[in-house]
């Protein structure tokens, strides 16, 4: 049943801080979230050249624990969690039997038999219900929706390490990409993870909600000299698109498989079994007929989500994400195209509000940070 009235927007522990700081707020996935502070372009450039601080406390946290926790995670998550050491994280998919995306997520191994899944805000109830049901055959494992126990901040950009290090005893330089450690930030108990959604070096910091504002303020204070600024969901979207990171609801959803999304690397092909494995193995054997491709617009114009892609007069696909990127200063995007049209250099048209506009397939990611 559809709800007759809309539920009130949920607020992160930093909501009052955002409003007091003059952020522009928008509804996002059921949450009242800052879309921009000083402007998408300024925030995007800050992350590419210095650092930006994001409140991503709307993201969901689901924990799975018990003697058979690994088997439970292996069943519901597409990637191979047996490869994770304690203190390590991986990107993965929560797939249907058809190999399509209920959601995408990060899987953290907190202890040998204790995992933390970070999922998209708008899917928390759906994901939790699915996971709780699907892990039953795995044996001794329970899933808990722990979302309300965590606030999550993301400090992203080349200056992130130097800004965060003075606030914590955790030695950050030695932390490898997609690893994490428990410690404290600004005297607040925290889990620090070298992960992010921007294509830049940086950290995601899990803290208790009641301490989120204190940590937020401490990071901005520490970053003052480096001109670190708060950033919103608008810049988060343009940054992740330059880095070619998929967005659930745009680039991946319950109609697109992990192979079509060109995410074969998050499929644990050597695992015994997991939800979606049979469909993906069959699709791998037969080959995909359509695939996601990155593109640049060659003429003037921005190809946005939902715009149709054409080869000649034939409609062949659809744009799933597209914007004018502040750093590369180009109109880029991702689109599903027939597999034979996805080689780099292939040209096609996008219907931009009635005007056919040339676009060219380019390799992803569009942006790769300098090492």
């Amino acid at each position: 049943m559809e709800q007759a009235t809309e539920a009130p927007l949920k607020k992160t522990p930093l909501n009052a801080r955002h409003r007091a700081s003059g952020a522009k707020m928008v509804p996002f996935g059921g949450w009242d979230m800052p879309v921009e502070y000083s402007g998408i372009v300024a925030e995007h450039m800050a992350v590419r050249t210095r650092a930006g601080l994001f409140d991503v406390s709307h993201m969901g946290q689901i924990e799975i624990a018990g003697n058979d926790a690994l088997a439970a995670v292996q069943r519901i998550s597409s990637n191979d969690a047996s490869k994770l050491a304690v203190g390590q994280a991986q990107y993965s998919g929560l797939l249907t039997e058809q190999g399509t995306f209920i959601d995408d997520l990060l899987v953290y191994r907190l202890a040998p038999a204790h995992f933390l899944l970070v999922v998209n805000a708008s899917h928390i109830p759906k994901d939790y219900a699915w996971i709780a049901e699907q892990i039953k055959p795995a044996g001794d494992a329970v899933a808990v929706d722990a979302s309300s126990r965590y606030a999550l901040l993301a400090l992203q950009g080349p200056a992130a390490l130097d800004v965060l290090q003075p606030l914590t005893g955790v030695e950050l330089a030695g932390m490898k990409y997609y690893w994490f450690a428990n410690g404290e930030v600004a005297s607040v108990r925290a889990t620090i993870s070298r992960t992010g959604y921007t294509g830049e070096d940086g950290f995601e910091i899990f803290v208790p909600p009641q301490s989120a504002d204190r940590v937020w303020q401490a990071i901005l204070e520490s970053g003052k000299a480096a001109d670190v600024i708060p950033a919103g969901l608008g810049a988060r979207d343009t940054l992740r698109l330059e880095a070619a990171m998929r967005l659930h609801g745009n680039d991946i959803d319950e109609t697109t498989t992990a192979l079509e999304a060109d995410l074969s690397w998050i499929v644990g092909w050597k695992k015994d079994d997991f939800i979606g494995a049979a469909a993906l193995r069959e699709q791998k054997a037969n080959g995909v007929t359509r695939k996601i491709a990155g593109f640049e617009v060659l003429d003037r114009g921005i190809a946005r989500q939902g715009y149709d892609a054409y080869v000649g007069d034939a409609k062949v696909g659809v744009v799933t994400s597209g914007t004018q990127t502040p750093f590369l200063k180009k109109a880029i995007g991702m689109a599903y195209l027939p597999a034979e049209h996805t080689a780099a250099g292939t040209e096609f048209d996008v219907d931009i509000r009635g005007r056919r506009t040339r676009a060219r397939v380019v390799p992803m990611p569009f942006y790769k940070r300098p090492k």
Partner: protein
Amino acid sequence: MASYPAGYKYTKDHEWVELSGDRGKVGITDYAQQQLGDVVYVELPEVGAKLRQGQSFGTIESVKAVSELYAPVSGEVVDVNTALKDKPEAVNADPHGSWMIAVRLTNAGESDALLDASQYQDLVK
């Protein structure tokens, strides 16, 4: 708080028109540019285009979204601010100085129904 020039007329769609005799220069308001965010494209009509009041005369795109531009008055386009093609961000920096098109009015009376600065300010506050 933004100041809206007293000599301009405003629409509920957040365009302004600066009238001078039978000519009018058209742009978007400070409120509109704030809502749009960083402007990256402005698409404007050719000189000679004939517009009816309320008709779309172009589009403006920010990083986030695309919006139609609506003619506050009927008229023929007699000049286009082509500088905005290369410097669309001027719309953010100086919305009330960044005119987009100039029109020769074909129905001078219809501007009476537009909002004045204080009425517009009430609308967006």
